[in-house]
């Protein structure tokens, strides 16, 4: 029997991915101690069931050692050089890489060589080529690689995916996605930050936040992008080097769904994802900010339902998912190949914005990463 909306949304925040057989703790090394690691990641690990932070890695010994204050479980503070040398490698099982995008590769390479599982922040790297090398390094060393798309363990998004799969909205026709924030005014008030350096970030808006509607749409639809079109505009000179401050892009998916997404690093904080099908509609709004309560509305037939559910810490869900996969020796998703599709799609979006034409997305990731 096809599950009903009521069946699917029962125990809204259930961890459908967590089996009964998970025991143990995964010890994490945090690579990079920026605000995200300090304010979001380490506190989220503190709340988790299956993880603890044991090692903090940063540019200076002082900063790394100072991280001990953030969690009682932290036993080692290492410099980046010490990490590359394999210092205290027995003190952690996995790494969480949260450096600037363009610096993911060397830390992931070292982690892979040390045989550590990798949880790497999105986007995978600053360019497709470097991202391919990153995936190849993990493949070579046969270490698990998960990319930290926290929306994929957000209950609202998982329930949306289940509702779409059950056909509750009919066949998906359109996706509308949006994410915006005021990066310089409210998030990181520094015009010299790495996100605005194309070498380190690969792009400021598509790579950092445009990725949310793109990847979440892929996950909810269980479909991949095949063709994109895009526009980008810069108002603030701080964004001139990267070239993308406000962005709109269209994505054609391989299941026929058409998506329109917008993203900005200099617009009022807002986020949503809407899937309109032949028979109904799903709306997650607000959608993509861990700090904003997620809203969820399902409309079908002659009725709509607004769900008010217990909010989870997305980062705690993500860490526990990653750890539970490692503890049960199961490959975690989203993996490197999944993330490479986004890298190619974003590369195509930047190309489309520059050329003003449609650009096809090369989704044949397996062969590409094998060659790298």
């Amino acid at each position, binding site marked *: 029997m096809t599950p009903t909306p009521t069946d699917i949304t029962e125990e809204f925040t259930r961890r459908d991915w967590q089996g009964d057989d998970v025991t143990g703790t995964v010890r994490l090394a945090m690579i990079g101690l920026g605000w995200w690691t300090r304010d979001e990641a380490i506190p989220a690990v503190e709340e988790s069931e299956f993880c603890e932070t044991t090692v903090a890695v940063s540019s200076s010994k002082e900063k790394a050692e100072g991280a001990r204050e953030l969690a009682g479980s932290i036993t080692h503070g290492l410099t980046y050089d010490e990490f590359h040398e394999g210092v205290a490698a027995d003190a952690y099982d996995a790494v969480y890489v949260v450096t600037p995008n363009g610096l993911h590769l060397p830390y992931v390479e070292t982690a892979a060589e040390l045989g550590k599982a990798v949880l790497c922040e999105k986007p995978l790297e600053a360019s497709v080529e470097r991202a391919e090398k990153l995936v190849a390094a993990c493949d070579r060393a046969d270490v698990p690689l998960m990319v930290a798309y926290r929306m994929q363990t957000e209950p609202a998004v998982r329930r949306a995916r289940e509702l779409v799969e059950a056909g509750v909205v009919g066949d998906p026709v359109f996706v509308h996605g949006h994410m915006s924030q005021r990066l310089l005014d409210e998030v990181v008030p520094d015009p010299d930050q790495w996100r605005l350096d194309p070498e380190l970030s690969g792009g400021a808006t598509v790579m950092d936040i445009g990725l949310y509607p793109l990847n979440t749409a892929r996950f909810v639809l269980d479909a991949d992008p095949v063709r994109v079109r895009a526009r980008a505009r810069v108002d603030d000179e701080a964004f001139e080097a990267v070239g993308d401050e406000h962005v709109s892009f269209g994505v054609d998916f391989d299941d026929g769904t058409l998506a329109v997404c917008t993203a900005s690093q200099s617009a009022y904080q807002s986020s949503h994802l809407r899937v309109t099908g032949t028979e109904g509609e799903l709306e997650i709004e607000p959608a993509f900010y861990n700090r904003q309560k997620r809203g969820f509305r399902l409309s079908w037939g*002659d009725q709509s*339902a607004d*769900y*008010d559910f217990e909010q989870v810490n997305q980062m705690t869900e993500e860490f526990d998912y990653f750890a539970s996969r490692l503890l049960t020796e199961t490959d975690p998703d989203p993996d490197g190949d999944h993330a490479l599709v986004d890298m190619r799609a974003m590369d195509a979006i930047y190309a489309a914005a520059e050329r003003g034409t449609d650009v096809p997305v090369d989704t044949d990731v397996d062969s590409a990463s094998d060659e790298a």
Partner: protein
Amino acid sequence: MQFGILGTAGIGIESVIPAIQASDHAAAAIASRDETRASAVADEVGIPTAYGSYEALLADDSLDAVYIPLPNSLHADWVRAAADHGLHVLCEKPLTASADETAAVFDYCEDAGVTLMEGFMYRFHPRTERAAELVASELGEVVSVTSNFSFRLPDGAENIRIEPELAGGSVMDVGCYAISAARLFLGTPDRVYATTTDTRDCGVDTRMSGVLEYDSGATARVESSFDTPETQYYRVQTTDGWLEAKTAFNIEPTASAELTYATDGRVVTETFDPIDNYRREVEAFARAVETGETPRIDREESVDLMRTIDAVYESADTGRAVDLN
């Protein structure tokens, strides 16, 4: 089906006649004791035939059914008269003024071979159907129901709602909805306690507050009055959560309806598109006539509702709990 309308009551003109006209059926004739009024209303609402007496309408061979929105005390006699003419009957709530009389008119209609249904339109609203389904299947065991239908009846108005001879009163007029809702979620109570007040010295209750008690341990609190701003709701408390509807009974066909419920750590508000529940009532009645199936609001429901109302009055009169078993 060709419907005849007995009387020119507002609910007929404003709600049920337009509902019949919007359906696949027809409002073919209307009767009033005042022929001029019958003709004027027929012209106004677009009914082809007007009669100056209810008897004359019942004798019209082209009709299949009648809709009765007369004052409560007149329902039983005209249901019987319609049945005598082989007409199926959709009669406004409350069906009669007592459980015995309700059972008697059902006997009468069964003998005459016609379908009789009491008109509680809210039972045909998709929101009510969904509420019943959720309570039956999703929310655990019902612990209590609270329901109220009250509004302010203007002072000094000559009004059938407060005439003792016409079986007026807040219970008969709107409290029956609150009791109907309690029954929808909990069934027929085992004991009833109630108190009523006649704040206008008019000979009928203008306020009622009652407790319905069930042997299972569940309870319902039901209220009605003519002395407050309009309020109409039900709230169901269950072992796993709760469910609540506002504007629960008489909702405009142009208004969307909300139903909120909580269970399993989530609160869900479902919104239903505007719908004419009178039309759904008319269509369900006509379908029951055509198929010979028992209508959704059947004899048992109407008789047991009236038994509960009888018990409310008896308890209010005697100051004691009334056993229904």
